[in-house]
């Protein structure tokens, strides 16, 4: 697109001449020497990083790729340890302020936050009046929900989210996997920055199945202690179709009853970390995805999230599965929003959303928070 005032022909001639000038061949090597350099480079690099590569491989999904990687990296890591070359990687990690022993998924990075004294979410009153009350299938202003009864007004004032005051804005967080990484900015955009501080803390490739990679339970505890959120949006689970690795390295195979029991327990513990400190939680289920082979698993874990949320008075569930299904069921990337406008809501990968889709999901989740937890309407820029 270089459009010049000179005549085009002259320009072409000049460019062609320029291209025909071959760079001077100085200090060149033979293919054999170059191959030696490549092998030395890759071999030494692998040796230096062997322990870290091994840790990464260990947290990969159970399967052939992981098995091959472990078979190659275990002896390499042993050699690195014997030669003490792994110490270089450890020293560099420490110099960068990282902990080389932490999980490969890293840790939750929270910005420095100054919390007002003696403030925080009000503790919850026990026992919710009704399980269905906290299960939202459709946005309040959209088509009425078809599978769940209409939610009742909250009966206990204790589930209401506090009204923010000057200097003590509402504290909101969005956590979970890569789906939540898209939801986070969309939620942030809908809150009034004067009245609410929103942290988007989603982490790619994480979930509840592989706590050896990233421990969301511990991360939630850290978040509650340091940020004392009033409201947390959770969207997690799309990577969890794999074995759960226990603290001793043993694998609980996906599809087994033991897997479901262990997963249910993890979901409950994760939620308890948040709500036991009084934080209200809106748990957004996994949306319908294009690949039908995943449907059975996602529906099963969505059932677990729903049950877990309904069992807790401070949690509400958003059924994103049906929210993003077209009228006749199935999957479509193109859906109508609250105003009936047809929009492309799903990303080409058939799992994630377009910015438009995330916006629709964020509005829905916020409206659920408004309905169930009486989220103060002045804190958001949409009608709830």
């Amino acid at each position, binding site marked *: 697109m270089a459009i010049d005032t000179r005549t085009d022909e002259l320009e072409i001639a000049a460019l062609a001449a320029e291209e025909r000038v071959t760079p001077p061949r100085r200090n060149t090597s033979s293919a054999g020497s170059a191959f030696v350099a490549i092998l030395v*480079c890759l071999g030494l690099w692998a040796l230096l990083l062997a322990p870290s590569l091994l840790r990464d491989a260990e947290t990969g999904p159970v399967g052939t790729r992981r098995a091959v990687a472990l078979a190659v990296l275990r002896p390499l890591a042993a050699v690195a340890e014997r030669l003490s070359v792994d110490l270089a990687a450890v020293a560099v990690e420490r110099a960068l302020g990282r902990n080389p022993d932490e999980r490969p998924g890293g840790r939750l990075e929270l910005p420095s936050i100054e919390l007002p004294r003696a403030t925080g979410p009000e503790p919850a009153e026990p026992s919710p009046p009704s399980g269905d009350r906290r299960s939202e299938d459709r946005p309040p202003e959209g088509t009425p929900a078809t599978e769940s009864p209409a939610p009742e007004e909250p009966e206990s004032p204790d589930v209401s989210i506090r009204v923010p005051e000057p200097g003590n804005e509402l504290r909101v967080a969005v956590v979970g996997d890569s789906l939540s990484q898209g939801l986070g900015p969309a939620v942030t955009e809908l809150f009034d920055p004067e009245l609410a501080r929103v942290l988007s803390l989603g982490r790619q490739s994480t979930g509840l199945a592989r706590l050896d990679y990233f421990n969301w339970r511990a991360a939630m505890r850290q978040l509650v202690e340091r940020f004392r959120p009033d409201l947390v949006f959770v969207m997690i689970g799309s990577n969890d179709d794999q074995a759960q690795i226990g603290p001793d390295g043993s694998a609980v195979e996906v599809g087994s009853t033991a897997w479901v029991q262990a997963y249910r327990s993890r979901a409950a513990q994760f939620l308890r970390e948040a709500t036991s400190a009084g934080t209200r939680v809106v748990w957004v289920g996994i949306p319908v995805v294009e690949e039908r082979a995943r449907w059975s698993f996602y529906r099963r874990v969505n059932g677990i999230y729903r049950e877990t949320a309904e069992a807790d008075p401070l949690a509400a569930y958003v059924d994103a599965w049906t929210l993003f299904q077209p009228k006749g069921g199935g999957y479509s990337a193109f859906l109508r929003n609250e105003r009936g406008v047809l929009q492309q809501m799903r990303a080409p990968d058939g799992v994630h959303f377009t910015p438009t889709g995330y916006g629709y999901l964020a509005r829905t989740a916020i409206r659920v928070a408004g309905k169930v937890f009486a989220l103060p309407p002045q804190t958001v820029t949409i009608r709830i």
Partner: protein
Amino acid sequence: MLFPTIDFAIFFAVVFALHWLLNPHRRAWKWFMLTASYVFYAWWDWRLVWLLALVSLIAHAGAVWIEREADDRRRHRRTAVAVAALLLPLAWFKYYGFFALSLANALDAIGVSAPLPLLQLVLPVGISFYTFMAISYVVDVSRLEITPAPWLDVAVYLAFFPHLVAGPIVRGEELLPQVRRERDGGAIDVSRAAWLIFGGLFKKVVVSTFLAAELVDPVFGAPGAHVALEVLVAIYGYAIVIYTDFSAYSDIAIGVASLLGFEFPANFDRPYSATSLRDFWRRWHMTLSRFLRDYLYIPLGGSRRGDARTATNVMVTMLLGGLWHGAGWTFVAWGGLHGLGQVAERHRTRRRVARGRSPEPTTPSEVWIARLATFHLVCLGWVFFRADSLGTAFEVLGRLVTGWGEPAPLVTPLVLLAIVGMLAVQNLPRTPTERLRVGFARVGPVLQGVALALVLFAITTLGPQGVTPFIYFQF
């Protein structure tokens, strides 16, 4: 297969060895390289290989068909048919969804149901790049600049893995002779290749990923939640992100090809040191600029048919260049901005010449003012390019005038260092790096390997875990 992955490192080590072993046996080499390139492409999705093979087949058959016609007018007609056939898959995958959705909503407004099924088509990675190369090949045959090559050569030319998914857009006259002839296995410029590959890895893995994650994505994802300083720095940050991301891919591609004994044309030349938008396009995505100039702007009449027609040609070229990036008003705005800017520059240049002044800035202060003005115009364009809608783009620009003086937590010293550092290197002389490269070339292969391992170790350690796909894969 992404370049900055272990998968690619293993793939390349194997391909490198076999490439040089088979180099003297050209037919065997061509089959090997075709297979290796198809494996590289199939790493994303094996079904894509059929599309690449189809485009190669159309290009070859089209070129042969065109060459057989001696009459100019008939040959041009055949060329138009071949180019349309090559563009069809690209148009289908790239624009069908946008077209069907727009039509459905338009008909919805008058109560008519959508006549076309709403299909979400995944854009095959690299389709734009190899389609453009195929077009350049058949058009060059039509212009009698080259003769049709054997089908295997054409297949290797289009599929050659270093350029396959994000360019550079290499023309037939540049690459086909290299495919045909044995490469010189005794003259590999390891120093230049290493500089390009490792420099590219640093730009992508460390700079681009860091700035995107820490600043640009959060701000463009929720501009309303960020103060003016964060928004301003995020706009500068995106200029660096897109440059380091895309030029990194080009550099690695050129470096990898160079290790295999192939020369690719340069794709970037310090674009943020440009003193005008025209200059910018001589430095940014140079092979696309060249493609649009030779196969669109000049056939439209170029600058030879008067000022009004030239301005129209510039606008058409830039708007189509914008739309090539995606079906959306943001890309139209981006292309339109660059088009209008260049038309205005031409007008200004004419006025300067009429007053007896040099058409280009001459004094250092003039040069720096021109550089700053060009950079900011380019940044304005990037806002539209990056935003997911015109509304978001205007919201980002609107935030620039609100919220000054408030804390800007995303503007950290490291973020500023990355931006300023990458801008500074574009305006520094090249001599020190040349010296470094010459020094590196003089040491033996084992020492070279050790040095490169340490650099790679540093890049890996400094970068985050996992690598995001290159931005230009989506185009």
